[in-house]
């Protein structure tokens, strides 16, 4: 139920893994990078959002090493991350923490594992991308309206719907909100770029060198730690093919 509304907005996910993550070189380097994590906890120590997360950043990376992908994909933490890059910057093992979390967000979305709790951030980002597809540049008024409406349809909170409404007139008065907005001449090219980047999406799970996701070791470890066994690793270790 909760998923339905979130997913009404197009996914905008890469055309195919070979076109998207793999071509940008992400899949390979991220998997290698993940394997290097030795749980020093520096990512979590510096994370401005750690207080509010259901999984600490270092736990995310450990769970992925253990193959507990679904536990990570269902977490709210991956959507609470604000991409400030403090973790990536400070990691002594050069793990691209934000890059991995980006990949988790895309997988969670593609596999329909985004719940209502995380939905608001997802809806914001989807309405943002949708707005760019239509206008080429962010048209703030229509994006705010779109986001507010989708958010309202999701949880029917009037308070959220009108939150910040008082700012509107103040922004107009300061000439900071615009009805027309800054326009792009060639808007058709943007639609074509989106189409080329978004067809028939099927992202793959991360593969960890020297480790078979879903193996017995991973499952028993996951059970011992009270975490779900990796149920949906359809693309077992195939990120490199």
């Amino acid at each position, binding site marked *: 139920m909760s998923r339905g509304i979130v997913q009404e907005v197009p996914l905008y996910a890469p055309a195919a893994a070979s076109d998207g993550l793999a071509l940008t070189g992400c899949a390979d380097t991220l998997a290698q990078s993940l394997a290097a994590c030795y749980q020093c906890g520096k990512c979590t120590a510096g994370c401005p959002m750690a207080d509010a997360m259901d999984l600490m950043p270092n736990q995310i990376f450990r769970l992925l090493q253990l193959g507990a992908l679904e536990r990570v994909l269902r977490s709210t933490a991956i959507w609470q991350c604000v991409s400030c890059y403090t973790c*990536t910057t400070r990691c002594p093992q050069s793990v691209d923490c934000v890059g991995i979390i980006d*990949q988790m967000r895309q997988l969670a979305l593609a596999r329909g594992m985004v719940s209502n709790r995380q939905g608001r951030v997802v809806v914001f980002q989807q309405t943002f991308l949708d707005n760019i597809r239509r206008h080429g*540049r962010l048209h*703030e008024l229509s994006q705010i309206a779109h986001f507010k409406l989708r958010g309202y349809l999701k949880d029917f909170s009037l308070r959220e719907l009108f939150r910040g409404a008082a700012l509107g007139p103040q922004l107009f008065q300061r*000439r*900071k909100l615009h009805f027309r907005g800054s326009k792009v001449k060639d808007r058709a*090219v943007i639609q074509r770029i989106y189409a*080329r980047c978004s067809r028939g999406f099927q992202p793959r799970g991360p593969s960890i060198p020297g480790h078979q996701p879903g193996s017995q070791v991973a499952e028993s470890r996951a059970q011992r730690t009270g975490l779900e066994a990796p149920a949906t690793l359809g693309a077992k270790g195939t990120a490199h093919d």
Partner: protein
Amino acid sequence: MIELGYYPGCALHGSSNDYEQSLRACLERLNVRLTEVDDWICCGASAAHSLNSMLAVALPARNLGLAERDQLHEVLAPCPLCSMELHKANHALAANEALRARVSEIVEVPVSGNVKVLNLIQVFERAGLERIRRAARKSIAHLQAACYYGCLLTRPPATVQFDDAERPQSMEAIVEAAGAKTVVWNFATECCGAGMTLASEKVVLELSQRILRNALEHGANCLVVACPMCHVNLDMKQQDTREQFGIEQVLPVYYLSDLVGMALGLKEAQLGTDRHFVPARNGR
């Protein structure tokens, strides 16, 4: 005369147009001429890199390609998020020939990944601190500035390759050249919540109050930023933040170009500081 390409990004043509007004007025005085990348599009921001890795390369790449087409080899991107996305695309493209070919096709303009991307601090450095010092005609010595870099001016260091990620000092150098004082404080590179203003206001207010408090505790009487999102969270949302967390003192938030502009003798209405939410104190 310094000639540079210019990629404003959505915020500077939208709700942060005071930033554009300020930096244009200021750079004109310093003889820096900006040529806007023709028909630029959004860089995709956090939404693209969170939801679609391919769009996250393609959208900034289109802009890099347009800049190249217009013979703009160096481009100022005053928004650190745009700047970081452009840098990221540059690195990805420069390192991978197959990607370069594919992306050039996708965005319908050849992209080499060789356009140099600059932030506002780098442009002031290019204009020269000595020049700013000499051109300063109005004293702003009453300002005790906490220079706030936020996340993406210095992070991730391998991508943006600018200053020191943990203890940057480049903004302080410019602020001091303009004649203001700077304070030593702890939150210069902590995150303000960035683009979460709408999606998660609670987070933004909490992170912002830590920054405001720390700046005040260290004797600052203003904050200086070089990011449209930092300005929104710390200026536009400041009243909410102060009310919610019981902070009594008001802290004006300036763009870096406001401060330099004031020293150069530009008026509030020329810089757009009269459009901030927290009243500016340049006239004092």
